[in-house]
C-alpha cells in the first residue's frame, strides 16, 4: 500500500473513529454523572462483549442483522436513495421465509433453506418495488413512502400472524418452521447461525460488485451526481430502481435470518428497530460493504456488552443504545469534523 492510498484510507475511517471516541466520551460523562466509574463500566462492557468465546458468539449473533441491514441501506444510498423502509422490508421477508419454512415438508434441508431464503428475498424485493416505482414514475420521495410502507408491513404481518397462521396460544406468533428450514447454529447453545456467514459472503460479493464491475461503477456515479451520469449515457432511473430492489431483497434476507435462525418462526413485532439501527451501522461504516462489518460488530458488542455491564455496575443497559445514537449524531456532523481537521492541518483559513 503506497502513501496516497494509506492517506485515503485514513480520511475514510477517521470520521468514524472520531465519532465512536466522541460517543464513548459522552457516555463516560453520563456514567460519571449517575455516580459510577466509567472505566469500570466500560471494562465490564468489553468483557461482556469479547470476554470468552460464548460472549463473542453472542456479539456476532447480535451483529448479524446489522450487517444485512447496513448492506441494504448502503446499496440504496450509493445510488442516491435513502431507504428508510428496511424495517418493513425485513418484516415481510421474515414472514415469507417462515411461511415457506412451515408449509413445505419432506424436502432436503439445503433445498428447503434455499427456497425459504429466496422467498424472503423476493418478499423484500416486492415490498421495495412500490417506493421505487413511486419515486421513478410519480416523483414521490422515498423517505416518506418507505416510512408509510413500514407501517403497512407491521399491520400486514400482524394480520397474517394473528388471523391466518396463528399458533394457538397467547403469543402472537406463527407455527414453528420445520427443522429442515432452520439455519444451522454455528456455536450452540448460542443462536449464532449460518446467516452470519451468509452476511459476510454477501458483504464481500457486494464489495466486488460495487467497485469492480461496470454496473457498480454506474451505480456509484449515479448516486454521486445523477446529472453527470446521464451525460455519460447511464440510465439513472433504471439504476436507481435496481439498487432499491436489491436493497429490499437484502432486507428480506435480514428478516429470514431472524425467523429461520433465531426464533424458528415468525413472531409479531419481533424487531427492536433493527432496520433503523442498521442505518447508523451503514453510516458508521461509511456506506462501504467492508466497513459495515466492523461497524455492525461494534454495535453488537455495545448491546451485548451493555447487558453484562448492567449486571456488574449500576448502569442501565440502554447505555449501549445511547452510545449508538450518539455515534450517528457525530457521524451526521462528519463533514464538519473532516473539513475542520483538514483546514487545521493545512493551516489555511479560507
Amino acid at each position, binding site marked *: 500500500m503506497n502513501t496516497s492510498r494509506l492517506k485515503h484510507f485514513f480520511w475514510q475511517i477517521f470520521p468514524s473513529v472520531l465519532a465512536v471516541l466522541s460517543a464513548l466520551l459522552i457516555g463516560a460523562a453520563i456514567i460519571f454523572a449517575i455516580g459510577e466509574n466509567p472505566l469500570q463500566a466500560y471494562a465490564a462492557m468489553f468483557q461482556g462483549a469479547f470476554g470468552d468465546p460464548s460472549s463473542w458468539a453472542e456479539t456476532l449473533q447480535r451483529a448479524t442483522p446489522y450487517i444485512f441491514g447496513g448492506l441494504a441501506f448502503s446499496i440504496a444510498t450509493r445510488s442516491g436513495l435513502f431507504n*428508510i423502509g428496511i424495517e418493513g422490508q425485513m418484516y415481510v421477508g421474515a414472514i415469507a421465509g417462515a411461511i415457506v419454512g412451515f408449509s413445505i415438508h419432506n424436502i432436503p434441508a439445503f433445498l428447503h433453506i434455499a427456497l425459504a431464503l429466496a422467498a424472503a428475498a423476493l418478499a423484500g424485493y416486492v415490498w421495495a418495488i412500490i417506493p421505487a416505482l413511486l419515486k421513478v414514475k*410519480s416523483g414521490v420521495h422515498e423517505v416518506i413512502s418507505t416510512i408509510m410502507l413500514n407501517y403497512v408491513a407491521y399491520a400486514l404481518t400482524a394480520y397474517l400472524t394473528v388471523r391466518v397462521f396463528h399458533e394457538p396460544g397467547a403469543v402472537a406468533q406463527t407455527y414453528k418452521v420445520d427443522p429442515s428450514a432452520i439455519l444451522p447454529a454455528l456455536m450452540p447453545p448460542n443462536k449464532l447461525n449460518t446467516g452470519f456467514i451468509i452476511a459476510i459472503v454477501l458483504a464481500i460479493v457486494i464489495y466486488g460488485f460495487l467497485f469492480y464491475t461496470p454496473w457498480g461503477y454506474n451505480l456509484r456515479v449515479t448516486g454521486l451526481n445523477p446529472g453527470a451520469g446521464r451525460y455519460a449515457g447511464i440510465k439513472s432511473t433504471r439504476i436507481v430502481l435496481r439498487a432499491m430492489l436489491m436493497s429490499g431483497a437484502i432486507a428480506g434476507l435480514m428478516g429470514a435470518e431472524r425467523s429461520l435462525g433465531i426464533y424458528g418462526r415468525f413472531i409479531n413485532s419481533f424487531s427492536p428497530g433493527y432496520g433503523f439501527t442498521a442505518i447508523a451501522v451503514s*453510516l458508521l461504516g461509511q456506506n462501504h460493504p467492508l466497513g459495515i462489518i466492523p461497524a455492525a460488530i461494534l454495535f453488537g458488542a455495545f448491546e451485548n456488552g451493555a447487558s453484562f455491564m448492567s449486571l456488574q455496575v449500576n448502569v442501565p443497559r*440502554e447505555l449501549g443504545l445511547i452510545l449508538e445514537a450518539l455515534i*450517528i449524531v457525530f457521524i451526521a456532523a462528519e463533514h464538519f469534523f473532516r473539513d475542520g481537521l483538514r483546514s487545521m492541518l493545512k493551516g489555511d483559513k479560507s
Partner: protein
Amino acid sequence: MISFLTISIIQATVAIATPLYIGALGGLFNERVGVVNVGLDGIMLSGAFAAAITSYYTQSAWMGVLAALTVGALLGLLHAAICIEFKADHVVSGVAINILASSLTVFLLQLLFNNKGQSPSAPKIGQISNLDSIPILGPILNNMSYLTIIGLVLILLSHFFLYRTKMGLRLRSVGENPYAAQSLGIPVRRYMYLSVIVGCALVGLAGAFLSIGMLNVFTKNMTAGRGYIALAAMICGRWTPLGSLGASVFFGYVLAWQMNAQGLAIPAQILEIIPYLTTIIVLAFVAKRARGPAHVGKIFAPSEH
C-alpha cells in the same frame, strides 16, 4: 349495526387527532424553511417523557407542558445545528434523534424510577367540564382537553401568520429559495433556526398531550409511530396548517372508527393501514401538484465570497 357517528367516536377522533395536528404543525414549521424532520416521532416521545416526569416532580401539569416545549425546542436546536451548521443530511439527523429519544427515555426511566415500562402517575392537564346542559355540542365538548383547544388556536394563528403577515411570507420564501431570499436581505439562517426550534417545541407539546393530556403516565415508546402519522398528515395537508388539521381529523376518525368497530368482519390490522395507504395514494396521484417547499431537504450553503 355499525355506527359511523356517535358521541364516543367523535370524542375519540378529537383525542387521536390532537397530537397529530399539533405535531403536523410542528413538522410544517420545519419543512417550510427547507428542513426535513423525520425525527418528529423521537421529539414527540421526548416531549411526552419530559411532560410526565416534570408533572410528577412538580405536581403541576402546566410545568410539564413547559418542560415538553423546552425539550422539544432543545432537540430542535440540535436538529437545526446539525442540518444548518454542520450541513449534514437532514434525514440522518432525524434518524439519530429518533434512536436517541427511544433509548434515552428508557435509560432515564430505569435510572429515576427503577422501572423500564412506565413512569409513576402524574397530574394531567385539565379538561372542559360541566357543559352537559348544552344540547349536542355539550357532550362533545365535555372532557375535551385544554390542549386540544390550544392546538386549534395554534393552527389558526399559524395560518394567519404564514399567509397574512410579512414575516410569514418571508419564512415561506426561505423554504422555496433561500438564495433569492438572502439576496433580498432576509436573514435566512435566523429564520431557519427559529422556525425549526419553534416547530420542534410544538412537536414536544404534541408529546405532552400523549402523556399528561390523554393519560397520566409516560409509557415506553408511547408515541407508537404517531410522529410519522403526523408527518403523513402534514404532507396530505399539503404543508398548510388547515390542511394538516383536516388530514389529522380524517386519520383520527379512521382510527377512532376502527377502535369502535372491533370485532367486525374487517380485521383491525387492515383498518390500521388506512392512514398510511391514504398518504401513499395521495402522494402517488398529486405528488406533481402537491409539492412541498422547493428547497426542502437541501443544504443551504451560500458562498462566502
